């Protein structure tokens, strides 16, 4: 773009100046202007920075970081206004114009940062990582000022700060739920489901007839709502974790079966003929060629299953549990309208799910480093 000003920062500047003309809070509450020194200071720093950026249009990683730092200062003063600054629940135009100004500047900063190309691989990775992280922080900030600023009822959507407080305040309950659902139901069910799926796949592979018969069915089952088996499993295995583990077993079995059977056919014709030319036996071919070639498929199933297992265990708990467990907590606290506790539980589930997946992805990378999808990065 050939305009004289940096468009996003110009918008941010205009919005920030306009914000000065309106009260921060009003409505039923007494009018509040930009009088408080902390709020005014933050706004001033932000305004001067975006003005400079709009005028001089500097680029490069360093300048974008400075801009984002100014945004952070602005965000801090906005947070100060809604928390304890007296604006919570009664925010008006002035405040939101300022937030939109922050938004424009954030966009400019992140866009600039996303476009940075560094020859240093480590630095590039740091930048590639920081963009989504900063974006995530920005979303959390929006959620926080949105919920607190508008005074959204806690039942509808609790502020992130409340969820954080609840998370920190009920670590013992969360730990017990985590142990019940994740360490028992998920891990045990996952191990059994993936293990049997793998072994059945190796057996099925020896009988082409079974392979042709089972593979379409396995594919079909992968599309079915298996979590619906939960009430039956509760009936068979009782209320405690074994019934949840059983649901996890059923959910993880078929993806592993289908993927491993497919993976065992992944070795190329030439590689097989090579083994044949060595007069290698079935087991030698299996261990030296076909299983290594199947590893990417096996790990694919392990990754898919890591998510499925957690879903299966949590949903199975909706059908009845002892009074502990992540699914149990979610369903009962929802009933009591303790939405912040539900969110705390969901945050934990998200962390557990991502960590589980991450561990599988890392293991995959160490074992299938040779696969074309990883080679480029070496």
């Amino acid at each position, binding site marked *: 773009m050939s305009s004289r000003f940096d468009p996003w920062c110009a918008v941010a500047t205009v919005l920030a100046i306009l914000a000065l003309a309106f009260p921060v809070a009003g409505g039923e509450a007494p009018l509040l202007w930009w009088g408080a020194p902390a709020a005014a200071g933050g706004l001033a720093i932000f305004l001067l920075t975006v003005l400079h950026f709009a005028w001089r249009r500097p680029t490069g990683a360093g300048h974008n970081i400075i801009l984002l730092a100014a945004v952070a200062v602005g965000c801090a003063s906005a947070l100060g206004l809604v928390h304890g600054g007296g604006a919570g629940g009664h925010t008006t135009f002035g405040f939101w114009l300022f937030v939109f100004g922050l938004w424009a500047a954030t966009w400019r900063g992140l866009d600039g940062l996303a476009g940075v190309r560094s020859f240093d691989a480590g630095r590039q990775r740091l930048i590639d990582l920081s963009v989504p992280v900063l974006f995530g922080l920005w979303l959390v900030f929006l959620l926080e000022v949105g919920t607190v600023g508008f005074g959204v009822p806690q039942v509808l959507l609790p502020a992130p700060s409340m969820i954080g407080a609840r998370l920190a305040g009920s670590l013992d309950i969360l730990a017990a739920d985590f142990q019940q659902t994740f360490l028992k139901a998920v891990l045990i069910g996952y191990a059994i489901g993936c293990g049997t799926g793998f072994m059945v796949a190796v057996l099925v592979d020896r009988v082409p007839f079974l392979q042709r018969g089972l593979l379409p069915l396995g594919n079909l089952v992968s599309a079915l709502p298996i979590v619906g088996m939960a009430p039956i499993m509760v009936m068979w295995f009782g209320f405690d974790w074994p019934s949840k583990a059983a649901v996890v077993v059923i959910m993880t079995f078929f993806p592993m079966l289908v993927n491993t059977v497919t993976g065992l056919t992944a070795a190329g014709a030439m590689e097989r003929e090579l083994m044949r030319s060595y007069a290698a036996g079935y087991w030698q071919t299996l261990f030296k060629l076909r299983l290594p070639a199947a590893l990417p498929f096996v790990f694919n199933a392990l990754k898919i299953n890591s998510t499925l297992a957690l879903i299966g265990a949590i949903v199975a708990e909706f059908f009845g549990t002892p009074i502990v467990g992540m699914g149990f907590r*979610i369903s009962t606290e929802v009933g009591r309208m303790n939405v912040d506790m539900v969110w705390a539980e969901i945050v934990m589930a998200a962390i557990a799910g991502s960590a589980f997946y991450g561990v599988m992805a890392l293991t995959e990378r160490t074992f299938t480093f040779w696969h074309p999808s990883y080679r480029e990065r070496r």
Partner: protein
Amino acid sequence: MTTEALPVVAVRRRTFGRLMAGQTGPVLVVVTAIIVLWYAGAIWLNTPWQIDLFERGGVEWSNADLVRATLAQDRPLLPAPHQIVAEMRKTIIDTPITSKRSLVFHSWVTLSSSVLGFAIGAVLGILLAVGIVHVRSLDKSLMPWVISSQTVPILAVAPMVIVVLAAIGVRGLVPKAIISTYLCFFPVTIGMVKGLRSPDPLQMDLMRTYNANRWQTFWKLRWPSSMPFLFTSLKVAVAISLVGAIVGELPTGASAGLGARLLAGSYYGQTIQIWSALITAAILAALLVTLVAAIERVTLRRMGMGV
């Protein structure tokens, strides 16, 4: 030249042989084996209770009596396939559709919300993918979150969405559809981003040599090349949207829908009801996936990508 050819050994292929050489025969055999095992399992699982019943009633019984009785219990631990078929016949064909006991009615309730959610989710997912492919900072900032959201057990949010929306007065179809939307949205986005990026550099360079603008490149190259990816993710999404609708029916004690049938069945120990709801859900899922696959086949064949 040599690998794909078959040996000359003249095998006269009869119909049976051809059936068994393809997929149909083996699948039929495996399904039959599953049904046989199912009966065996039903007899085995239901026997202890039945013996208990006989002894309490002081009834003289033979093994044949036992087998017959285990396959005809009211609330068996594992109902026999024919009991489920009978129940489904009763609740699907013999009951009027308007009745609350009709499985067609319950299926419709679940199906309508899952299809609505699927449609919205697919459209939103495609739109977001288009944005991500064309806007660098969306790609850099949002895409990592979309990908990592796949590792989060999203379904756990379902009860809260239902309850919170009910608290502000939104009930019925929409909350369940929102869950389905949410579940469909991410796989479609990821599949479409991959698909819209699938044209190889050569094809993109060709568009550059024509000085084609983004709009033309999109409609003439990116969009057509993304079709196989779109349908692959739509198949995943349609299956998952049904799961979302069913789970969405669990927490509020909803009175209609397949999820509600499952929950009611589990409250009252009506195993036959649970199984028939489950089988119906499975059939629905299979039908939905088959439908998408059929559309995929027709579309891809028209575009010359079919097989």
